[in-house]
């Protein structure tokens, strides 16, 4: 059993990579030999999991918690938050819940085929500090100044995923894993403001705005949140090399996750805005001639020259490429270095170093480390791992223990839970 635990932190350390698409854990990892928990022979693995992750490098966790919980945000609190913004900020959120089932081939852990059903949501955004202030504080503070919200955007996608994977021991010391997913996509909303500026006259007598932006939205006219508005495919691939040492083992692993696409149906709305507006209010001379004040005027159409159309749209899934090196020392200690590069999301590259300690008698492990990047600044991940009755494995962790302790001072947060049952 002791040696079975060796691989735990290989996955734990990657799980704390609070970045990219937040799906840093491959939920079949619980059954992968060599770099997960159980390396002994077993027939099958059943697992349920859930994680909720969110963060921003410009906005602290406490503010995001309040956004999620709701309630009234007072102006002083918003101002305090705004003072911590970067020039360009990123934010993201993710949840992933599902069940997975794996069965070994030839009654061996050398090869296994897995099935997984997952419900996922991903939000990725980038925004300037001016965009935040406009959205949460208004334009009064920009009197006599120009608020620049160019190159701001967000993308929110929800989908369900049926994944079929296969891993095998390629050679004595190398392992390979391939998984293909069919995707039923539900909702898609995206905005990208390539150019967006708003100048508020010093006395407020005019607004001068310009915007060049694209908006996309899947068909939300009717149906439930599980309505299928698009279909797609994705692929996960990983390869690991293990090298036995005199007093331990080291592992080198590379992996690609969620490389795929979604084709949204023909009812997907694309709205393109390319407009400049100079607004001074209602022309008083018009009011004198026609003494009717209609607050509906001017309408949006008076301002925005837009071009809307419904059509097929293809989007990439937020994906990640990851590389890691793990050095296991003896049977209690391990250190892991990892780095990730996100694709098709607004997250930044992510790096982490983690340490793991194994409680052999207790059949448990704890890991912690330091990470930076993704959608957050400094993060201290913490994870616990415990085996019950040699068959039930419980994993629980946070992506940033600092945000749990002091959410108003740190960025990025997340909770992770996984329960595996093996035979």
């Amino acid at each position, binding site marked *: 059993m002791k040696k079975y635990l060796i691989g735990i932190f290989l996955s734990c350390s990657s799980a704390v990579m609070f970045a990219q698409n937040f799906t840093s854990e491959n939920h079949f990892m619980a059954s992968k030999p060599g770099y997960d928990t159980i390396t002994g022979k077993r027939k099958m693995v059943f697992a*349920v*999991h*859930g994680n*909720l992750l969110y963060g921003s490098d410009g906005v602290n966790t406490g503010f995001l918690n*309040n*956004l*999620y*919980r*709701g*309630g*009234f*945000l*007072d*102006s002083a609190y*918003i101002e305090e938050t705004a003072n911590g913004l970067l020039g360009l900020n990123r934010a993201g959120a993710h*949840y992933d*819940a599902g069940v997975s089932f794996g069965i070994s081939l030839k009654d061996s852990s050398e090869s296994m085929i897995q099935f997984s059903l997952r419900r996922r949501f991903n939000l990725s955004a980038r925004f300037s500090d001016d965009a935040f202030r406009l959205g*949460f*504080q*208004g*334009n*009064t*503070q920009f*009197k006599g100044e120009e608020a620049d919200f160019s190159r701001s955007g967000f993308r929110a996608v929800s989908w369900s995923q049926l994944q079929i994977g296969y891993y095998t021991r390629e050679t004595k010391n190398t392992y390979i894993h391939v998984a293909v997913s069919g995707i039923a996509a539900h909702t898609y909303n995206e905005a990208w403001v390539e150019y967006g500026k708003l100048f*508020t*006259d010093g*006395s*407020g*007598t*005019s*607004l001068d705005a310009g915007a060049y932006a694209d908006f996309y939205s899947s068909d939300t006219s009717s149906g439930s949140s599980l309505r299928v508005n698009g279909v797609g495919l994705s692929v996960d691939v990983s390869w690991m090399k293990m090298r036995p040492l005199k007093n331990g083992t080291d592992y080198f692993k590379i992996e690609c996750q969620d490389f795929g696409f979604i084709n949204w149906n023909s009812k997907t709305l694309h709205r393109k805005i390319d407009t400049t507006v100079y*607004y*001074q*209010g*209602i*022309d*008083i*001379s018009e*009011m*004198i001639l026609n*003494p*009717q*004040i*209609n*607050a*509906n*005027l001017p309408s949006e159409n008076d301002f925005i020259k837009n071009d809307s159309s419904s059509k097929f749209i293809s989007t990439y899934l937020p994906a990640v490429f990851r590389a890691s090196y793990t050095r296991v020392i003896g049977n209690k200690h391990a250190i892991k270095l990892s780095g990730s590069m996100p694709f098709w999301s607004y997250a930044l590259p992510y790096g982490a170093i983690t340490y793991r300690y194994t409680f052999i008698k207790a059949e448990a492990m704890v890991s912690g480390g330091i990470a930076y990047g993704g959608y957050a600044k400094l993060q201290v991940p913490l994870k616990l791992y415990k085996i*019950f*009755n040699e*068959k*039930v494995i*419980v994993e629980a962790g946070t992506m940033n223990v600092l945000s749990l302790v002091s959410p108003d001072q740190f960025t990025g947060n997340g*909770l992770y*839970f996984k*329960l595996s*049952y093996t035979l």
Partner: protein
Amino acid sequence: MNKYKSLLIGVLLTAIFVFSCKREELSWDLDLTVPVAYGSFGIDDLITDSLITENADGSLRIVYHTSVPGIDDDSLFGIPDTTLLYNYNLPFGTTTVYEGSYLTPTSPSQTAYGLSPIQLVFGTLEKGKMKVHLKNDIQKRVIVIYQISSAELNGNPLEVIDTLPPAPSPTVGSVTDLEVDLAGYELNFTGIAGDRVNTLITLFTAQIDPSDVGAQVITPADSVSAEIQLEGLRPSYIRGYFGSELNPVGPDETYISFFSKVQSGSLGLDSLRMKFTVENYAGVDLRFTVNNLWSRSQRTAQTLYLNHPIVGTSVNINRAAYSNSYPPSIPQINSWTFDNSNSNIVEMMEIMPEFLGYDFSIYTNPLGNVSGNNDFLYTQFGINATFDIDLPVNFYADNIVLVDTVDVDFSGVEADDVQNGVLTVYASNGFPFDAGVQIYLLDATNSIIDSVVAAPGTIYSAPLAISGGYFFANGSTNSIVKIPLNETQTSSLLHSTRLLIRPRFHTGTAPDYVKIYSTNRIGINITADFEYRVKN
């Protein structure tokens, strides 16, 4: 058992983790600055362009025109509705009629039209109707012809022909109703010999239908009748003698919209001229008498009568002549000008009246039928009386307050989400007077329910200079007026549908006058700084 217990606990924990979070409504306040209104306008924007005239020196005059509605051609020369009756029956005894038998004489008759003292010889109808009610008590088909041969349209006489069915029984007749549009008909009122007036040539004939073969005994109870109604005759042209009649016009009042929105204050006018004009487009001599002219302010319950020699004096106005062009008659125009030197017209206008009253008498053909029945009238061009008020914009105003209502629709605004704010008015005033405005909210019955701006800030007058005894604006003055609105006021404003606006003007130069020039303008920018609650 333990392993299943662990599994169950794990599943529950996962489910709780994923689904247990329930959020309340998120909200925050935005501080928004929004331009509300802007504009730059001069006196010509405030007053209809057609009222404004610019003098050579750039100073302005207001010319207000209104007409007297009381002189109505119909009342002078109208043609009343008339009913003409025709009837055939045996005076006594019985007789037998056959197919083709005539029941009436076949020669025309002359029908006099009751128009006295007007003696018409000719007319063209602009509109009118002839309603024909025919009745047959004879139990045979009867052909009825009704003709007004002195009424023609494109050379064809007015004629109605109808075949009446046999009476269904000796006691029940058959009836037919017809209607003829008389628009465009020319009427000759001179009779068969051409020596009469107000007389139409008519023919009513009734004949047993020649195809209704057989004899029929008729008695005095068997009649054939026609009832002819001439209704709504409106001539476009008439000729004849229009009588020698005294026609009162008024007393009545015409509404002056120019001062209608004044609520309080006093006005001093440097000078004013009012021209009273009577245009006679009718070919008839007139004797015109102004019995009274007055101005009345309903607001102050003041009435001032005109002091001018014209009042009580009769004036002869000659008849118009025919014209070969449009308009078809050459009018005789008489006018009188009232000003500071010959009347109290300035005082009459300084009370800022809403009504101008008049009491006239028009005596037609005071010398009798001197035209030999050749008076004429194109009814589109009758007798017009007009007032033209020529007001140089030299005045002083002592806190003149106007009042007006404006319908508003703020339904496009999420009224409950706007918290409070400040309206700021930036004004660059190039007029030689101070200005301010009060704004109130009205309910459905136009009662004031709340105020938005009860104590108006002041938009100060432009710097003043003096020339020729008049103050004038020399440059402009910038003013900022802030109008704070609390949450209640904001909510009331955005839920309202009608506002009461009270602009106030004050020259502060009385008894000296200020002069308004075409270059005087006021630039206004209104902005709103307010808190807007975003809810999500």
